[in-house]
């Protein structure tokens, strides 16, 4: 598999603050890659360096084998970056904005692609409207259209769905999945971890300017030894708290439901214990760990770090 982006020893300081500490990362062509981390982790700074919005202090980045400094014009043509901040050019309506943006990337008469994007992002009926008349979600969709108008090989989406309603979020993801299936490399940062869990093949988790873990989604989730057993009883659960003392347990006395956390090894004993409670079970559900659990563990509690 060829390399889309190679990041080597990238460092960036803002005064005394080390925004990025020796970042090394390889993203392959055709991957759907997640870059996750809490606010201030350094994700947007890294994307900014990639796109030429931020000057790096040290290190090297190549895009499709070309250096982003010495070959910046070529690398910029390969990248479509949706910045986190919602920005707009107040003088031009949606269609004009996309025509101008096409021109910036050396493309004339780009109507076919513009119409495709307007349709995919549900902006067709807003094409002749100025950006001030667009809602926040529409402005964000216009940003996405701008980033895709030159048909880039690598698409970087920095919080693309913030403020976008659920229906349009789904249609956006359908479109991005389609682009990915056509071979485009997608890099996604998002606060919606369930989106990353659903979409990404590999994920890097950043915290305080460092990459604390890079792995496939499955490996990341499997690294957490956690099962959550949720049981709904026909009988009252009042009084169960005493019996469940010492376990990580939540009891909902109104719904007659209990929720117990256990490791995979303890699961067998836990199910026997529930059976021995002598209560009539009406529903049971066992959930595995989620990406959110991995995220919380790696960003709040530290621990497993890739050196």
């Amino acid at each position, binding site marked *: 598999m060829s390399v889309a982006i190679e990041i080597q020893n990238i460092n960036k300081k803002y005064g005394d603050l080390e925004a990025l500490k020796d970042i090394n990362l390889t993203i392959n062509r055709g991957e759907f890659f997640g870059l996750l981390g809490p606010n201030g982790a350094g994700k947007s700074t890294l994307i900014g360096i990639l796109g030429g*919005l*931020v000057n790096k202090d040290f290190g090297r980045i190549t895009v499709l084998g070309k250096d982003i400094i010495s070959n*910046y014009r070529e690398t910029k043509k390969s990248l479509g970056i949706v910045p986190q901040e919602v*920005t*707009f*050019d107040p*003088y031009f309506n949606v269609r004009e904005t996309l025509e101008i943006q*096409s021109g*910036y*990337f050396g493309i004339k008469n780009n109507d076919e692609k513009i119409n495709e994007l307007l349709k995919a992002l549900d902006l067709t009926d807003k094409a002749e409207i100025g950006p001030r008349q667009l809602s926040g979600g529409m402005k964000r969709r216009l940003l996405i259209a701008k980033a895709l108008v030159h048909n880039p090989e690598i698409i970087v989406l920095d919080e693309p769905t913030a403020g976008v309603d659920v229906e349009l979020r789904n249609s956006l993801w359908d479109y991005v999945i389609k682009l990915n299936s056509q071979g485009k490399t997608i890099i996604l940062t998002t606060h919606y971890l369930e989106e990353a869990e659903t979409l990404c093949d590999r994920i890097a988790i950043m915290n305080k300017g460092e990459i604390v873990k890079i792995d496939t989604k499955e490996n990341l989730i499997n690294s957490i030894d956690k099962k959550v057993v949720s049981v709904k009883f026909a009988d009252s659960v009042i009084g169960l708290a005493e019996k469940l003392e010492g376990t990580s347990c939540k009891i909902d006395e109104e719904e007659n439901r209990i929720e117990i956390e256990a490791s995979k090894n303890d699961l067998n004993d836990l199910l026997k214990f529930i059976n021995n409670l002598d209560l009539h079970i009406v529903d049971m559900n066992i959930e595995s760990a989620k990406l959110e659990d991995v995220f919380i563990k790696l960003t709040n509690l530290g621990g497993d770090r890739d050196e």
Partner: protein
Amino acid sequence: MNSITFYSLVKREVSRFSKVAIQTIFAPLISTGLYLIIFSYSFKSREVVGYGIPYISFIVPGLIMMSLIQNSFANTSSSLIGAKYNGNIVDFLLAPFSYIELTLGFMIGGIVRGMLVGSVIYLVSILFYGGEIVHPLLALLFAFLVSSIFSLLGIIAGLWAEKFDHVSIFSNFFITPLTFLSGVFYSVKGLPGIWSKVSLFNPVFYMVDATRYAFIGQSDVNPSFSLVIIGGLAVGLLLLVTYLFKIGYKVKS
């Protein structure tokens, strides 16, 4: 240089001010038109010492140059500070512009607006002084160079400014005083004592004086000398602005 990329930036810059033409083209016409009316009425019979021509013929080249200076500066400075304010400055940073394309693209936008306003004011001034230009090609050359210089200064101001007020500082404390003290309304030869010498340190003086030479065939200093100063300034600023774009002065963190 990619012609489509470059042309798109020029088109964006020209479209931007054309969409607000009342404010960018016609407003300057009103203010300069008022100067023409007031001066042609107030100093109807006055002749400029050493020139032997009516006062209105003397000030028209300076008034045209003044409008050209203000508008070419305003175009680039407002375009850039507006782009910083609205955040769409990232459009120029993320796109594959070379640094010289960015410099020339913004600069040409300012030149077009400056020369358009200057041309409209010239057309109106015909009503007041007859419209004769002794060296028309030279007048065009000076208009081009001066609007280039102030477009480039506008880019510097726009990059440097963090809010709209900062651009007015640049305009009110540098551009306006230097323009008003450049001999638009008087001949510096007539200034008392040291002041005629001090005026020679004002670069705008050479711009106004050279333009006056192109219009009426007379000037305070040799127009070739003025051309060297104006041309040198234009080239120096072009290199400086290209460098500022390269380092991402005040736009990249």
